[in-house]
């Protein structure tokens, strides 16, 4: 942040979530009110949801459900843990969680970067539609369930049924995968994939700390793309 940036403070011990979101929604493109510091979030829900301006919001503590839901353009930093559905359906921008994230992180998200430094719970990246998700720790079971597009990068391990019924999303996992879901298979890690993974790691600020060669790639076998009675046992 340069010195000319206007900084605002918002204390949720006294102000309401509605007031915070209304103030953030009132920001327009080109606004110079670009750094917002939010204190005492205390696990409140829907914090910084529905933003659509290139601002930075730093939340000092744990957040509840759907923090930064449907985010566009904004950078939202959570200095704590995040509840269910952090960054759900985000379109663009950047969300960073310094702690762990609960279930359904980045659910159905279309774009932008969701970076979780800690662990992510079950169904991380469920039905993702183009977002890039990077998880520093491990992800829980059924992550990337029905994932349609985008990338999920996991530096730790993945739980059961990774990528179940996956479409065209790409999954990169450095650690162990407990099991793969229906129609999800390990795929060859070619140079183009290492280059893509490097870009995602770089976007998260992890370049040089992690070697793309240590990852395995998973994706759709595309055998369930058309209903066929012979596949009935796979469903």
């Amino acid at each position: 942040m340069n010195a000319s940036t206007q900084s605002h403070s918002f204390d949720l011990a006294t102000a309401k979530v509605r007031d915070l979101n209304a103030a953030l929604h009132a920001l327009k493109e080109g606004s110079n009110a670009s750094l917002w510091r939010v204190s005492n979030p205390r696990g409140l829900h829907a914090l910084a949801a529905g933003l659509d301006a290139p601002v930075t919001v730093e939340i000092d503590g744990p957040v509840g459900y759907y923090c930064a839901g449907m985010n566009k353009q904004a950078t939202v930093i959570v200095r704590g843990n995040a509840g269910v559905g952090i960054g759900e359906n985000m379109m663009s921008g950047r969300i960073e969680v310094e702690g762990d994230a609960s279930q359904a992180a980045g659910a159905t998200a279309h774009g932008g970067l969701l970076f979780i430094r800690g662990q992510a719970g079950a169904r991380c990246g469920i039905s993702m539609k183009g977002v890039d998700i990077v998880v520093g720790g491990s992800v829980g079971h059924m992550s990337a369930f029905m994932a349609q597009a985008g990338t999920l990068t996991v530096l730790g391990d993945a739980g059961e049924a990774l990528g179940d019924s996956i479409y065209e999303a790409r999954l990169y996992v450095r650690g162990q995968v407990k099991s793969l879901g229906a129609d999800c298979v390990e795929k060859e890690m070619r140079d183009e994939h290492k280059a893509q993974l490097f870009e995602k790691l770089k976007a998260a600020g992890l370049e040089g700390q992690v070697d793309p060669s240590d990852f395995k790639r998973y994706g759709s076998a595309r055998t369930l793309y058309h209903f066929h009675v012979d596949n009935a046992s796979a469903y």
Partner: protein
Amino acid sequence: MNEHVKGPAAPRTLPRESATFDAYTLSEIRRAAATGIYDIRGAGAKRKLPHFDDLLFLGASMSRYPLEGYREKCGTGVVLGDRFAKKPIELKIPITIAGMSFGSLSGPAKEALGRGASAMGTSTTTGDGGMTPEERGHSTKLVYQYLPSRYGMNPDDLRKADAIEVVVGQGAKPGGGGMLLGQKISPRVAKMRTLPEGIDQRSACRHPDWTGPDDLEIKIEELREITDWEKPIYVKVGAARPYYDTALAVKSGADVVVVDGMQGGTAATQEVFIENVGIPTLAAVHQAVKALQDLGMHRKVQLIVSGGIRNGADVAKALALGADAVAIGTAALVALGDNDPRWESEYEALGTKAGAYDDWHEGRDPAGITTQDPELMKRLDPEIAGRRLANYLSVMTLEAQTIARACGKSHVHNLEPEDLVALTIEAAAMANVPLAGTNWIPGKTGF
């Protein structure tokens, strides 16, 4: 030949078909045996069910007087979503257009729905494929569905909507997800849904980021925060346990509850699901109303009922039982031109007939409505079809007003259960109104 009978041909009993194994059942067994996969089709339950036909209005008599037709006013307006939303929806008629997806329906069909509904001052609803510019542009009031798949979901369209409908389920398939077969995943549909072209697409049956009413409450709070508490939020459920589902929707913070009975249509689902899961619309209305009344929320949280609404009598009966509005889907498509006998030879070529065509998922609709085929789509002129829908909505409204005036009501919402009787014991029990000619409500009052 019976040995004891002499002479010319002895009398024989007629060939007897089984009521249990009737012709349809036999054909389905043969189809299953040949293909090894269940039958998929569109539309809602087709079997005979207790329905609004089993109710009658009593009209005015000695103890109450009617209103003059064409002279004395009978209001039809309805306000939806004034519990929490800053901008409730005001409709001129209590008949809305139910959610149907772009993908399932063609772009011109969605446009026609918008034109017809807007001409009559009512709303249309998106579906499991996102919001199209055609639909937004031609609908003065548009309800944006929030579905498990979240195809095309984005905050810009959310803010363009006039209301948001969180879809938990639908009457044709409570507990089921959707499917759209590859024939209908055109490049445009694929792009809107972020899917590869031409694949058979499965829509999820559960929402990805919430489960149950406690989560839903938080989800609704998020949607309200994103849209600055402006939009009414509906919760739509398939009729299964309407008393509890309605109560839980209210608890979750819904402005409006939509209850869809098993006659409500779907774009494509297993036949076995459509015909065997969920309850009829008639059986759902009273339970939903009772839940609202028990919570002191009747008329504060509005109730929309759908599933097999066909005419003004159905509208009036649903309202008399306590609904605030109804929604139509299948009937609206018929008004546009779906299943029209003018295409009879083409229906026959598809192995069906006008009035029975329900393979909407195959995308070969001769009427050009449930298709993404550019040539078939051209058959539907959205302006003419929109006008037909407006005409039909107008007739339904006039019919409902006619009945309301006959019952002495100056607004269709003044219709009440006391105006109704049932023709069958089943209908009396389901609708909680007396059997005609008696004061008997099964389970409530003595003979």
